[in-house]
């Protein structure tokens, strides 16, 4: 990693922390309030790509683990890794990686804006929702002994909010790419 890559990852980690300090917003059509922090994880992938995005998320988790209240709602310390929802935190790392990987490989400067947006959305949806919930639900099912179907049922309420975030991440990802492109482009 060059110094610039390291700094970009650290700055993005700081953005994710800052997003966690914003109050959660409630949307009329979604039952649970949504926090902007997991949006930050998708954004790390679409803006920085797989490697730097993953490092940014790892840094946030590292800060939480060493006792800084950096997670949404002022959570932090090793205790957040002892919660039933720890799987989602572990999933963040892979969510950022997969989102970034798809964004790097399927979003191209030569595509039209609409196609770029759709590809960013798919990247955020597959990485930030499918991969994230795979980890979150598996962990919840194993740790609580609930079993997969019940753990899935319990997580269902959060999925619409996260799909909404994937739309925001796609729009923001494209806007940032137009304004200040950072994604390492690969064919």
């Amino acid at each position: 990693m060059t110094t610039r890559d390291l700094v970009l990852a650290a700055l993005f980690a700081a953005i994710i922390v800052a997003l966690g300090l914003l109050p959660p917003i409630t949307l009329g059509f979604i039952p649970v309030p949504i926090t902007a922090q997991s949006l930050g994880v998708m954004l790390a992938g679409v803006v920085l790509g797989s490697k730097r995005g993953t490092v940014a998320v790892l840094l946030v988790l590292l800060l939480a683990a060493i006792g800084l209240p950096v997670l949404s709602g002022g959570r932090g310390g090793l205790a957040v890794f002892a919660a039933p929802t720890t799987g989602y935190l572990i999933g963040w790392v892979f969510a950022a990686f997969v989102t970034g990987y798809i964004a790097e490989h399927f979003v191209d400067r030569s595509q039209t804006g609409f196609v770029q947006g759709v590809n960013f959305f798919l990247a955020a949806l597959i990485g930030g929702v499918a991969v994230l919930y795979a980890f979150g639900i598996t962990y919840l099912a194993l740790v609580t002994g609930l079993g997969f179907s019940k753990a899935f049922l319990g997580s269902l309420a959060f999925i619409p909010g996260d799909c909404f975030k994937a739309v925001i991440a796609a729009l923001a990802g494209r806007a940032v790419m137009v304004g200040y492109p950072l994604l390492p482009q690969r064919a």
Partner: protein
Amino acid sequence: MKTLYVEGDSVLHRLPPRVKLLGLAAAGIALFFFRSIPPLAVAALISAAIYASLGIGLRHSLARLRPIFLTIAVVALFTLLVGSAEEAATVLLRLTSLMLLAAAVTATTGIGDFIDEITLAARPLERLGLVKAADIGLSIGLVIRFVPEILDRYRAIKDAHRARGLKPRILTLAVPLIILTLKNADEIAAAIDARGIRAQK
């Protein structure tokens, strides 16, 4: 940013961080081998006693532990609804014990100690060429340094919206925030390299 470390002179404060972390890991594994309620209840009592011995105070402890305890309680309640009372009690006791022990380690270990431990743990990875151990401390410092700055910038962008009579929306806030912040990266990277902090090839 205020850390969750609490000043003190308890036995846990004086234990080396590595012993605490290994102990926590061992306790975490052990807790998943107990499946009946009595040993788990004993474990929860011991964990509570350890946490109480730090002298953090009830009100302050509640403020720290409430968000995580709420998640545990919600999951236990959900388990009670779809499963049995015994399963719910197991989940509640096991995760509460783990939460208390983890919170006790966090409250008694300073950030500097943690960073030293992590840097040491990263040495074997460094030999494999995967990470540079010294980068970990550097990046943690960078994040802590820039969070307040980003929050200021966020407020400024929000004010700019208001001044133009626009409704602040997550999208129109996030994009300028990301671009403005990441545009600093080159300068910061140049400053780090100019000081030879990463002393690299």
